[in-house]
């Protein structure tokens, strides 16, 4: 039973980690680029 709890906990952490890494990516707040060409086309 103890082993099952730990194993399924590891599974949950792994799923959440990958979900956060590839699906819920943190959106960084970009600074204002100004008027010219800063490369943010």
């Amino acid at each position, binding site marked *: 039973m*103890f*082993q*099952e709890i*730990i*194993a399924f906990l*590891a*599974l949950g*952490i*792994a*799923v959440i*980690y*990958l979900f956060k*890494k*590839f699906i819920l*990516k943190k959106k*960084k*707040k*970009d*600074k*204002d*680029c*100004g*008027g*010219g*060409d*800063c*490369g*943010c*086309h």
Partner: protein
Amino acid sequence: MIHQNINVALIGNPNVGKTSVFNQLTGLNQQVGNYPGITVEKKIGFCKLPHNIKANILDLPGTYSLNASSIDENVVIELLLNKNDKLYPDVALVVTDVENLKRNLLLFTQIKDLEIPTILVINMADRMESKGISLDIPYLEEQLKTKIALISSRKSQGIEELKNLIVTYKSISAEPCLNASIIDKEYFNNLQKAFPDQLLYKLWLVITQDVNFLNLERKEIQGPFTKSHTELKRLQQQETIKRYQFINDVLKVGLAVDSSVAKDFRSKLDRVLTHKFWGYIIFFVILFVIFQSIFDWSSVPMDFIDSTFATLSTMAAEHLPEGILTDLISQGIIPGIGGILIFIPQIAFLFLFISILEESGYMSRVVFIMDKIMRRFGLSGKSVVPLISGTACAIPAIMATRNIENWKERLITILVTPFTTCSARLPVYAIIIALVIPNHRVLGFLNLQGLTLMLLYLLGFGMAIFSAYVLNKVMKISGKTFFVVEMPNYKLPLFKNVAINVIEKTKAFISGAGKIILAISIILWFLASYGPGEKFKNAETIISTQANNHSLSKTEINNRIAAFKLENSYIGIMGKTIEPVISPLGYDWKIGIAIISSFAAREVFVGTLATIYSVGGTDNETTIKNKMESEIHPITGAKIFNFASGISLLLFYAFALQCASTLAITKKETNSWKWPLGQLIFMSSFAYITALIAFQILK
């Protein structure tokens, strides 16, 4: 005891040894990150100075002047203009090369005019004697209103003196070298009158540069003083001329070069290494030696790591209490992690060679000779840097395209860079080559495996150039950007710099891919160990009944049960569903699962197979390589990893865009899903078709 923290900014032109100075000051006390909101690398290190002062050393991107033309250079200006930035320097160290002092001093005078206490660090001082250079340091200090540190970062000379000088930063003059008003008296006087509290040179930068200024209202300054683009350019040129006039006057007295002493070793070597025929031959010989060595030298440590993980897995299964967690550890986690750590030797050797080439100054010559080829295919020389740095990873390589001014050239470079063989492909290539290419030597020195690896690298680079050529024809690029490459002096690579680079890159490879592989290994193990329906539940009964009809040993029965369970597990069902699509390429469903999971990161391929084979494998084979080697097709009885399927897999990975992060960065850099999706569809289709043709011909 009072501790004081100060900020020290390291600024300088590219190739003046700035990173060497950074490494000398900080050792391994470094943190690498990104500037907020942008993806320019930010390196901060920590250094203990005399009198209990601690310094945060910020290694800023290399820049030729404060007239920014790329996002990297903007970072430098933004920091130097924003006193509210927590990293705003208490003192700036402008690193220069003793042989290029005149050009390097342009940036120095600009930094000085921002009234930041500035120390002039003259690097590579150990070469002064052989080059016949002598400096009048007191005179230079007086004229440039600064303190000078004469150092050799390569030979660790003058570093302690530099540290002692940094702690005296409060006594260093912040007086500017030039009065900005000499550029255009009337214009600058009016500007100063309108903003009497602001520094004149800072105002000028606000008007001319496209950077963020947190404490200045750009529109307020720009509005009344806006000039046409041409007029502003004219004034910038005027500024550069005035600065060089000043620098020439100072160096006329402060610097003397006895040309009869100088040895012309560099130009002799350059003539050979950048020769239009021998230059390429030498480059290919060097590449050849590198790839031969990668295979030869890393085989022993790789076998050691592989067998260690195999032993660990067996030990975990034997010694831990029986149960699901033990199975997860021994069949999922350990083989999965082993599947990535096994490649540390090859990754480390690859970066060792790349670092040596960079440190020695040879890489700039490679960029120079490759530029000639690139132009024939319609790309600018600036595309060479991303394509070459793509051998490490496509992500920073795509970011490196930001200094390409022409948008279409930049877009093409972004789209073709993922063809370059990145380090994540190396594990896949290495294991497949080891399985399907014989470890033979031809003519006594030509290792076939090393040669195959080199051909794959050339194939990736060739495909990138060919795709660029096609895209160039289709997209019709208008206008050209010009490419200037710095040719640094040849140097013996500094062990410390090479070591730091290898350690950092290898660490990034392991930590970047390691977490993903660990997570995927856990999930895969569950998917391979559980299944829906009666078949999975009753696997033992079904196989035992079958076994009664054929006299099978206990081991054989157990192996059959494991294989049957795996086939009817969740992952088995998923794999069987996609099998019809991939079987024409010579792959079975297990390879199909590995290909899908390796879309997160290519390195996951080997870890995935290691996990799948551990769950459903035989007891006889323990190492990853042996497991893969002994895998046979259940119907044909032929080896799964044979020459035809191996070549097909190599070609698939050479061309396919198996990297979620590359898609994400392409989306970010192009600000559209159109380009990354087009890239994904084209690369995947091309990879599929090539792999299909290869297998069908070779089978």
